[in-house]
């Protein structure tokens, strides 16, 4: 750290020196000109023009004009602009130049960021997808990872709920693991960021927040998604689930300051709202259940006392409409970027406020970023990337928490009054009062996130660079919740307050030595190599306090509570890594590369602490071969193949290998105790993913159509598996390296330039991917999900996230009873007849993105689709109960129940009869019995196609803009989730209510649906 402050001091001294040197010798030539895009004709602003052989340069003005001074002997300009091919323009005698830039083939030719280096995509053997920051605009979602939905092949993104800033599921090429994490590694400007969910407020089984929503998407320049082992092995034990590298915006040398202001306002509502039966219908169904039950019990139905003799007169209270609202979103962003000939900078400020369409949840985010680089000398560069974010949320309960807003409004019977006769809030059964919850929710979660990286880079030789950096990701969440005596959670304890302080800190130190050199005649030989090491430390700290018994509801601090308790824990895990990679290209045609990483982790047993992760790949630029050129068909053709290993250790505890007794929560009669906690496993080590990938990339029709296709085969073995062990051991599971999972798939991306004229440009990007997941080795079935109902199963030979239910074949038209498949044909329905009936994994996911520009107008629309996944509709599971749930109402689908002989329906006869629970086509199994409603009648097809976004923009012509003293201006309107095509009967098919466990995907359970949003925005530069 001392050395760093020294660097800073030197930097200041040097700045003074540099400024003093800025004089101009005589005898220069002044060159002026204009730079435009060859297909649009309009001037391009901000194009970088550098005098060849120097770092001196300028950038173009808003209309594309520039002027630059050449000294004696300087003969050429290098002109570069993001998305266009770089040109070298010779300056012989002329003083005026006009340059038309040609759009580059971004998919095949870009220089992109890879693990610890940047490389031309042409020579990379790995499978890497790139998304530019510009491609994720105009959708009002807080997390950049959510915005990648439908944008790239091989990536599946699902928003778990419609809560703003809420959790998402993001997987690359399927689920690799069962108990370790399936999330990719996110590297933001060199920082390995934490994806640990910091919010502790207990709210059912959903992730409350997306930790990556702390990054403002507007600050992002580009995103690279590293998918295969060749690309990820350099990240060793962190790379098995893929790596997402985010590069934020930086200024460019020699560009004048550009100040940009960006704002939008949006309005959201629910596409569909929950529907329940009205009072008379609820009464009718309840009566019918009572009569049928009496008949089943052999009683005379005439003697039954009806629960509602006058069902028709029951009132109806609509709780649903009170919980939904039209939610507003506001966003403001201000940024500036630019650079001198020695330094560059980017600074951005952002503010986002977003309401949930279900009351009363809100989300608020302030972001600030500063990135800059300084060339201290020709050889030495230093710089930093700093991000500071403050977030605020008021998390509210959902899914299986009966005291959440949606539960209380949805499940309570509709004839029950909202208020008691004396005006107080009425509550029924297990449920709270939704109105009270909305009015008295007092949860505050404030997050402070600092992600920073400071580096120095020294060019020992032009081809040999050493870079050293120190990074930190500090995520602090401070939650203060108060349940007042107006809501159930606070009634009994006379006010209940919880406070949590959660800190997740990642510290990283990294050294990388890079060697890039071409030599030989015609530079036939190119070498790109690096070695490096990192020290990585992850610190998790938590302190919590609880207070009960408050004198008044306005006293919400725990210091004012009658009884208080507290707790604190901390844990540390460390990772030491050494890595190297090298790539050799011959004649721009053949590339061979390899990498290896050695990782040592504190999580594992002393003898198995180190893991080694090698990879290798080959690339053949077949398009460069004469015989391919002679075909006059391919503009580019590349074949690549790779093989490698990567590891995974995330998601297991920091002390998972040690035999431990715990003191946490172990006490009796106010004395502290200890109890066995976990068995030692000295052999615990990494789970390893072996991945092979073959890919082809080509461009045809004069680069108008670019195609990238991949096939991959991943085999993950030595799974870090919580293997169930006999309970008589005193333990329920034992973490060991056991089991294997495969993921195989194909990916296809097409990029087409459909129309390319001066006035009109229309491009289409299409991607589709199919992944097949299978658990190939497992000790025994693992059942979980739906709060102990065990509807999800992991079983050898089947995919993860499989559903395990009784298959309802029909409802017997004679009896009205459900008939289930008797798998073992023993004439009875027992747990042996439960079977796997599908899974939550889509067979295909993909996106279709169109961008059309017509003069000053631009139109974009994105379709996202997924096909083949199932959804367990838990709302129906509870609300089609045949009368067994006295305090829960019905959904209208219950009205389809069997009523008389001959009725054909899939909803069985209403009854609460319970004898003979094993009888097939028996009354007990309609809604109870052995089946206990764990029936396929609530499992639905979750396929959908959605018009994810559509936007229409207008760029105000440059002369009009200039009159307003602006650089540029664009106004737009856009709509998100405007159309959804699906057979799913619930509110929205994009849902995952049990998302805090990666193995229980695909539930829909009292969850905020995806909102439909319309927004209008403005972006101006000065």
């Amino acid at each position, binding site marked *: 750290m001392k050395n760093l402050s020294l660097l800073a001091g030197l930097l200041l001294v040097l700045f003074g020196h540099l400024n003093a040197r800025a004089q101009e010798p005589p005898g220069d030539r002044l060159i002026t000109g204009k730079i435009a895009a060859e297909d649009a004709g309009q001037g391009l602003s901000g194009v970088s023009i550098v005098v060849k052989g120097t770092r001196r340069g300028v950038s173009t003005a808003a209309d594309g004009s520039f002027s630059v001074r050449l000294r004696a002997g300087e003969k050429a300009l290098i002109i570069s602009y993001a998305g266009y091919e770089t040109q070298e323009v010779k300056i012989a005698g002329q003083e005026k130049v006009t340059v038309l830039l040609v759009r580059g083939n971004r998919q095949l030719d870009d220089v992109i960021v890879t693990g610890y280096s940047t490389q031309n995509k042409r020579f990379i053997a790995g499978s890497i997808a790139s998304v530019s920051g510009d491609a994720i605009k105009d959708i009002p979602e807080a997390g950049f990872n959510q915005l990648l939905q439908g944008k790239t092949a091989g990536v599946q993104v699902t928003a778990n709920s419609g809560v703003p800033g809420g959790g998402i599921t993001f997987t690359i090429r399927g689920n690799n693991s069962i108990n370790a994490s399936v999330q990719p590694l996110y590297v933001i400007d060199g920082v390995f960021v934490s994806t640990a969910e910091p919010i502790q407020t207990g709210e059912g089984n959903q992730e409350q927040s997306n930790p990556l929503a702390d990054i403002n998407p507007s600050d992002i320049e580009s995103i690279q998604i590293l998918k295969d082992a060749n690309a990820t092995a350099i990240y060793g034990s962190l790379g098995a689930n893929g790596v997402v590298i985010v590069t934020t915006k930086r200024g460019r040398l020699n560009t004048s300051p550009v100040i940009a202001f960006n704002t939008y306002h949006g309005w959201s509502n629910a596409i569909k709202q929950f529907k329940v039966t009205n009072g008379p219908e609820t009464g009718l169904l309840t009566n019918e259940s009572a009569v049928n039950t009496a008949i089943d019990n052999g009683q005379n139905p005439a003697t039954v006392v009806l629960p509602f003799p006058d069902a028709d007169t029951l009132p109806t209270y609509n709780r649903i409409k009170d919980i939904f609202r039209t939610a507003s979103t506001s966003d403001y962003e201000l940024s500036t970027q630019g650079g001198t000939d020695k330094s560059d900078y980017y600074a951005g400020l952002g503010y986002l406020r977003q309401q949930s369409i279900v009351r009363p949840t809100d989300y608020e985010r302030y972001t600030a970023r500063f990135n800059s680089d300084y060339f201290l000398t020709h050889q030495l560069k230093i710089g930093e990337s700093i991000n500071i974010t403050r977030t605020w949320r008021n998390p509210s309960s959902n899914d299986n928490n009966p005291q959440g807003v949606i539960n209380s409004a949805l499940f309570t019977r509709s004839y029950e009054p909202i208020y008691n006769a004396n005006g107080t809030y009425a509550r029924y*059964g*297990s449920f709270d009062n939704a109105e009270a919850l909305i009015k008295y929710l007092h949860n505050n979660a404030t997050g402070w996130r600092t992600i920073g990286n400071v580096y*120095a880079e020294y060019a*020992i030789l032009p081809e040999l660079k050493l870079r050293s950096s120190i990074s930190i990701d500090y995520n602090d969440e401070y939650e203060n919740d108060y349940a007042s005596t107006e809501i159930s959670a606070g009634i009994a304890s006379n006010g209940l307050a919880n406070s949590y302080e959660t800190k997740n800190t990642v510290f990283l130190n990294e050294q990388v030595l890079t060697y890039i050199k071409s030599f030989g005649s015609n530079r036939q030989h190119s070498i790109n190599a690096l070695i490096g*090491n990192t020290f990585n430390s992850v610190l998790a700290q938590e302190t919590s306090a609880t207070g009960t018994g408050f004198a008044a509801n306005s006293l919400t601090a725990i210091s004012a509570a009658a*009884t208080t308790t507290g707790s604190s824990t901390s844990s540390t895990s460390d990772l030491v890594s050494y890595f190297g990679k090298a790539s050799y290209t011959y004649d721009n045609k053949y590339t061979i590369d390899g990498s290896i990483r050695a990782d*040592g982790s504190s999580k594992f047993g002393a003898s198995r602490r180190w893991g080694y992760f090698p990879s290798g790949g080959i690339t053949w630029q077949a398009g460069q071969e004469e015989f391919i050129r002679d075909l006059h068909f391919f503009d580019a053709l590349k074949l690549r193949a790779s093989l490698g290993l990567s590891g995974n250790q995330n998601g297991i505890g920091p002390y998972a290998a040690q035999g431990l007794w715990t003191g946490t929560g172990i006490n009796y009669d106010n004395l502290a105790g200890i109890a066995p906690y976990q068995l030692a496993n000295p052999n615990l080590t990494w789970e390893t993913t072996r991945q092979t990938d073959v890919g082809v990339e080509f461009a045809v029709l004069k680069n108008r159509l670019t195609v990238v296709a991949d096939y991959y085969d991943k085999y993950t073995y030595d799974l870090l598996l919580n293997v169930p062990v006999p309970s*008589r051991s005193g333990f329920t599971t034992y973490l060991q390296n056991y089991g294997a999972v495969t993921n195989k798939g194909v990916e296809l991306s097409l990029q087409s330039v459909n129309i390319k004229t001066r006035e009109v440009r229309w491009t289409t990007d299409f991607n589709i991917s199919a992944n097949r997941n299978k658990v190939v080795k497992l000790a025994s079935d693992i059942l979980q999900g739906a709060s102990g109902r065990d509807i999800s199963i992991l079983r050898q030979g089947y995919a993860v996230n499989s559903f395990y239910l009784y298959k309802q074949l029909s409802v017997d038209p004679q009896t009205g009873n459900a008939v289930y498949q008797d798998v073992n044909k023993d004439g009875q329905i027992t747990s042996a007849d439960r079977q796997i009936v599908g899974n939550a994994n889509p067979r295909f996911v993909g996106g279709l993105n169109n961008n059309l520009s017509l003069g000053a107008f631009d139109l974009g629309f994105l379709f996202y689709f997924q096909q083949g996944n199932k959804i367990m509709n838990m709302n129906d599971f509870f609300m089609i109960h045949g009368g067994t749930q006295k305090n829960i109402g019905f959904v209208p689908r219950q009205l389809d129940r069997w009523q008389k002989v001959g009725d054909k329906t899939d909803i069985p006869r209403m009854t609460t009869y319970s004898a003979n*629970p094993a009888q097939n086509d028996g009354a007990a199994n309609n809604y109870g019995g052995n089946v206990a409603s764990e029936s396929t009648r609530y499992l639905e097809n979750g396929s959908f196609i959605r018009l994810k976004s559509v936007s229409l923009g207008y760029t105000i012509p440059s002369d009009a803009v200039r009159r307003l003293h602006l650089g540029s201006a664009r106004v737009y309107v856009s709509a998100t989730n405007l159309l959804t095509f699906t057979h799913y009967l619930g509110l929205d098919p994009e849902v995952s209510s049990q998302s805090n466990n990666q193995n229980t995907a695909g539930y829909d359970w009292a969850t905020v649906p995806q909102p439909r949003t319309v927004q209008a925005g403005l972006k101006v530069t000065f």
Partner: protein
Amino acid sequence: MKRSYILSLAMPAGLAMLTGLAMLTGLASCKKFLVQTPNNELADNVAIVDASTANAAIIGAYNGLALYYAGNYETLGTMPADNVIFNGTLSQYLQLDQNAIPSDNVTTVAAYQEIYATINTANSVIAYVPGVTDPNLTAAEKSQYIGEAYFIRALCYFDLGRGWGGVQLELKPTATLSQLNGIYRSSLDSTWLQVHSDLINALQLLPEDATTRNRAQKSAARALLARLNLYSQQWDSAEYYSTQVIANTKYSLVRPYKTFFTAPFLSAESVLELTYTTADKNTFWDLWYPSSLGGQYTLKPSDTIVSQLNDPTIGGSRNALLAGTAPNVYGVLYNQIATSTDPAYVIRIAELYLIRAEARAQQNELSGAVADLDSVRSRAGVPLETNTSQAAILLDLERENSVEFAFEAHRWFDLVRTQRAGAVLGLTNTDYWLFPIPLSDVNSDPDVVQNLGY
């Protein structure tokens, strides 16, 4: 120009040094860097080594007991029978109420796992405390801890036996998984034999009775022996041990009835009562109270028990177990809603009276049986026994147990042990008189056999 040149030399030197330093210190401390230990857990090889850890381990065993008695075991003892009905949303309770219990029923699985975890802790105390040489651990404490561990293990195996039938007997702390191999389910008789032998050891080692009621002392072991002998139909032994406890002046039938479940707890009624604190809560009340009072109202007194408790000739002062008005009557045995510190009533002196009454009745000592039954009845303020035949007295004892222990872990186990679950509950399939072995055990344990019918 010169200044810049010097700088360009000095800077890389500094950077190289910085990098080199980082790499060197990194390498040197790498080994240490990769060794991390937790601050809230103990390595298992130093878990029971001195006086304080020995004490902490037996506290850990009580904590285990208190965990499965914080609602789960009481639920198993009531819901499958007729005093308590399902009124909530969680299907594990519906399954118990309907006697359609799948092998992954949350409550049976949790109780089974919690009981065996407690056994493992007790086994550790029994195995390791004798070897502790710390002079701060007195011989009396040593014998007390080991005696308590034997008692706790006995109660655990007893609770397993009456719920699941004969079970696998684990008598050593689990150090490795391989030691589990080859231990099969014992018969119920062998399970009872193990409980008996543990209780005899406990009786020897436990301290004489003092004022303590929330930890095992000699009387607790005798009381459990009485209950064990009742279950195994050793009527004379049941009578013998219950007489010993009833004779102890430490215990009495407290009046009014509700005294024992009204704070302050640890009344003279309790032979063994588990204590909960704000740091170690018992939130069982939450399942009984309606949401208007902050609860979930999942468990509800049945119409039958409500009418019996409210009947002055049957329930008497035991109607204090109920609150609310029809149809929203709820049970208030567990009532510390503000603090969640309700005790668990494991053995009350009233039970010893009813054990002795039943043992005497079975041995045809009818007058003694009626005297014990009347002790319990008169405390509740209901008319004394008028029946005189053995069969009628036994039936009256069945009902007395039902109303006296309406919401404690009794009714279901009583009906199963007396083979009356078919007649009373209509549950004629005797397979369903035992809970299923958890599915995860059936899947992971080659040595276990599932109960019939599951």
